[in-house]
């Protein structure tokens, strides 16, 4: 487990944000793919498997919640951590109800994110092992 890198799918419409965050995560030893919209993300998800998805809720076009629903129907076991741009707890809570693992508010603290990613992957692994 620790030897294989955790593979993260990062979906965010702000490319600058997504690429920078991806770089920072890679510096910390994660493997990342970025998608700038929900469709892109789903396409990537169809091609390869990921350990976890980090999903922005506020996106133009296909919204974060729609993307979340699709992800949960195609790969229900993959944990999803939500990012939300504005302090709306409403979307966050809706996301939680749809099966997201946890949520973080932008701008985020990288330590919080990695903590959530680790616990999410750990939890899903635990589930798989049961």
């Amino acid at each position, binding site marked *: 487990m620790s030897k294989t890198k955790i593979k993260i799918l990062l979906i965010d419409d*702000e490319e*600058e*944000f997504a690429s*920078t*965050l991806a*770089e*920072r995560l890679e*510096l*910390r030893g994660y493997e990342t793919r970025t998608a700038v919209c929900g469709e892109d993300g789903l396409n990537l998800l169809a091609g390869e498997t990921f350990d976890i998805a980090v999903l922005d809720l506020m996106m133009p076009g296909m919204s974060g919640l729609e993307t979340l629903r699709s992800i949960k129907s195609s790969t229900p076991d993959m944990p999803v951590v939500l990012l939300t*741009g*504005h*302090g*709306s*707890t*409403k979307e*966050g*809570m809706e996301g*939680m*109800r749809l099966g997201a*693992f*946890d949520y973080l*508010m*932008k*701008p*985020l603290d*990288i330590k919080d994110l990695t903590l959530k990613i680790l*616990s999410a992957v750990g939890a899903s692994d635990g589930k798989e092992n049961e």
Partner: protein
Amino acid sequence: MLKKYKIGIFLDRIYTSKKGSPEYYIVLRRMIIITMMILTTLPLAIMIMVNHFQYRSHLRNELLSPIITMANKTKHSFELLLEARLSTVRFIATAYTYEELKDAQNIKRILSVLKNEFGGFVDLGLIASNGILESYAGPYPLLGKNYTEQTSFQETQIKGKYVSNVFLGHRKFPHIVVAVQHLNDDGQTWILRATIDTDQFDTLIHSMGLESKSDAFLVDNQGVFQTNSKLYGDTLEKCPFDIPSNRFESHIFETEDPDGQKVLIASAGFSTANYTLVLVKPRSVVLQSWYALKTELFVVFVIGFALILLTIIQITNSLVRRLKESDEKREKVMDELQHSQKLSSIGRLAAGVAHEINNPLAIINEKAGLVNDLLDYSEAFTNQAKFRLLVSSILQSVDRCRTITHRLLGFAKRIDLKIEPMETNVVVKDVLGFLEREALYRKIDIRLKLYEELNTIDSDKGQIQQVLLNLLTNAFAAVEDGGVIRILTENFKVSGVKITVSDNGSGIPDDIIQHIFDPFFSTKKEKGTGLGLSISYGIIDKLGGTITVSSRVGQGSDFVITLPKTPEHSPEDEHEQNQD
């Protein structure tokens, strides 16, 4: 006219005086009182006037008919008296022959019998068809007098009988003459004439039993007194009243006597003679009962008027006071509405700005973070420490910006309410789902006691979630790892809901608890915005509910939220309940 003019002034004042000024309510009060007074007392006055006239005409008839009856009765008595005298004379004329009556001894004897049996007879005379007095018994030397030119003779010749008007005899006593014509079997005509004094008339009038202010008398068709009048003159004087000389009919009319007193006059004309019986009564005596009724009517009106006036003033006072209160209330609500609308638009603007700023802020955050990371992973170079300092400064500033945007978003959020039916227990569970993981990490024991038959209320789900999240976040901050947080839901009053969030954390000192709902008051220093509880307070207040806190240092805090059935549903009542 005066009233109209005054109302005009009031209207002007109402239009010119500003609503809400003390003047306005004074004028309004006066307007209402005057309008109501007119509307209520006018019908009352009209009713009383109508009653007045109806009663008057009715009572008049009731009161006047006895007078007419009395006049008619007395007239009848007079007629009977006269008829009796006429019959007596006629009987004598029939019983005795012309020759017997011509005998002076006989006629004197007859007169003396008449005087004894009937009374009132003064003299008796026999007049031949040529008008010469053939025989006479009585005190005057009239024998041989020619009556041809006299009315009494002429009228008797035509009508067969005659009753004269009263005249004063030689001894200044009032008398009347009665005369009958007799026709013999052999065609010879002669007239028997008797003079009678009028003492009997006075007796008859006296027998009417009139009260002191009333009077009764006879007048002839020339308006000359035929009997003495108690109040208006003696026999043969001119009567001061205009008596209708129509015979056979009775009249009643109102007039003024020579003293200016209002009197009622009933008159009844004789059929046998040119007399009219006149009954005079002062109006005040006749209409005494009417005056009493009139006074009663007036008293009723005055009392009614006073009662109406009092009631109207009372009602108007309370009406105007309530109007004033509701005006003030409405003004206050309008002010609040305006204020909240202003806040709402500011909020929307703030939310827009915050949202737009948040994304670039996230990018700056990540870029600076990356620089920091790179500094960590690269080898030492000159100014590395300085770079680190700069990046850390950038990150701190980003943090500050984040606080501001969150504050703005929080501010915006408490403005727009979306009211829908809400299952409070479901909302509590939603919020808990949000915090479950943290509770798990920190081994915090969350104990739920959700009332199963909790009222469904109309409220804003999202806002309540926000409030509960705020309270729970605070509770999480207050308790140690492994602490206990209790959430209790129950029905509040009839249709409301009460949510209690308790923790066994550090508790809140008294000096802080006073400011706990104040905006920008925070004990969390850098971490908090100091807006969480004040926003919560604002939201709950807006939803018509209350939020209160009680705490003991070292033992924990209880936050109690009550929510009404609907945000409009008597929030005041529930405020009062939970003020302390």
